[in-house]
């Protein structure tokens, strides 16, 4: 379970997230929508502390995963990131073979057992619905895959280290509609095992894949509710204006 309590986040003096408290249940898909610069990506990145990489940022409030505050000093960031996988906007496979891409997280973790690695790679590729397409060419450079395949490879890469949460930052915005729908189907099947949080520009995508949707605007969480509720009868006028395209 992911939970935030009164989160405030600053880039230098810029107040990027304002007092955000919410709870996301296990094995659900939660989507964040909102106009560009509304803070939804920033919020997503809180959960695996990717914002740590940006200098001059500052956070107050609590961010809990399974009850533990991940911003405590005792928390090891690398361990956290193994538990909270992430998929990025543009597919970013490493310049290695397909196999090595998926095995990367394991190798970084110090695992040497070849059989174990091979098995885990296969499982992860199957989990990402890519196995059938690549099983005969695991040695091929990952760059030779299509964009959609690359993105599923990145998902497989994240699955290989057995996270409990998967964060997705606009995972399909760089892909064509066919690849997009494959990724969306994949998200549906991953929901069984993982807690998924997804940021998307595409409202329909949020509607299609998520159980719950949060609408962000200007760093505030305007509305957070069941996706059906948000898209059929949102409570806030701002939400309504945004999802109907009347925004601004």
């Amino acid at each position, binding site marked *: 379970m992911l939970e935030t309590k009164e989160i405030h986040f600053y880039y230098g003096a810029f107040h990027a997230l304002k007092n955000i408290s919410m709870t996301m249940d296990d094995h659900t898909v939660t989507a964040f929508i909102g106009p560009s610069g509304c803070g939804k990506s920033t919020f997503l990145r809180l959960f695996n502390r990717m914002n740590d990489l940006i200098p001059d940022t500052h956070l107050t409030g609590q961010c809990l995963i399974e009850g533990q505050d991940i911003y405590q000093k005792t928390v090891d960031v690398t361990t956290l990131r193994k538990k909270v996988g992430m998929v990025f906007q543009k597919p970013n496979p490493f310049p290695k073979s397909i196999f090595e891409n998926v095995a990367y997280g394991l190798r970084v973790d110090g695992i040497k057992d070849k059989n174990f690695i091979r098995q885990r790679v296969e499982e992860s590729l199957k989990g990402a619905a890519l196995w059938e397409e690549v099983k005969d060419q695991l040695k091929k450079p990952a760059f030779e895959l299509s964009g959609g395949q690359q993105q599923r490879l990145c998902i497989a890469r994240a699955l290989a280290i057995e996270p409990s949460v998967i964060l997705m930052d606009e995972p399909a915005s760089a892909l064509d509609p066919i690849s997009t729908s494959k990724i969306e*189907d994949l998200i*549906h099947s991953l929901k069984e095992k993982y807690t998924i949080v997804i940021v998307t520009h595409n409202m*329909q995508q949020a*509607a*299609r894949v998520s159980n719950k949707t949060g609408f962000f605007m200007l760093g505030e969480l305007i509305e957070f509710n069941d996706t059906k509720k948000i*898209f059929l009868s949102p409570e806030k006028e701002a939400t309504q204006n945004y999802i109907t395209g009347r925004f601004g």
Partner: protein
Amino acid sequence: MKHTEKELLALKEEVSQMWKLVLSQLEKAKQAFLNDDFELAREVVSREKRVNSFELKIDSDCENYIALYNPVAIDLRLALSLFKICSTLERIADFAEGIARHVIEENCEPFSAEMKTQLRIETMFDTAIEMFSDSYEALDSENTKLAGKILSKDEIVDEIYIHSIKILAEAIRKQMITAECGLHILLVMRKIERIGDHCSNIVEEIVFYIDAKVLKHHKNKVDI
């Protein structure tokens, strides 16, 4: 199968569940009327609530489906058809309930078998139910060939209804039955006639869904 397809199939399945429920309501109403079966009539009345809740459920599912999945083309036509079919089904179920209520509320003598044959009331019931189950068949098998057959059956129903007015007027004049009872029977037959009309509407929706043709307010729809 794609996730969105699954959602749509689930919706379709719900509608067919409702269809079956309404069909059984119709069958029971017919039995109750023909046999003057109070028990059966009460059952029909009490089960009407289930039909109503079915309608609410399907309504909201249709809304959600449209809101979340933004269907287009055949998906959109199906969603819209199901939405309309669903409310039509509810109307038909209302008529079934209405017939059952007639059975419960009127205190007429059961009228003679001769009269029944003369009125062809059973045929009328059967034809309407056939139309109803045939239109289900058409939706389920996505077969618009059945449409013409169903629509032509509606003419039989209409013909029986128009005919029954004369027969009933005659019977009342001859004081074979009370005027009140005669009117009751006419109302029931009127309801069956409406069921036939609604079935025609359903068929039109099905044709819209499958062939994307609008049949409403067309003269020669039977020729389809």
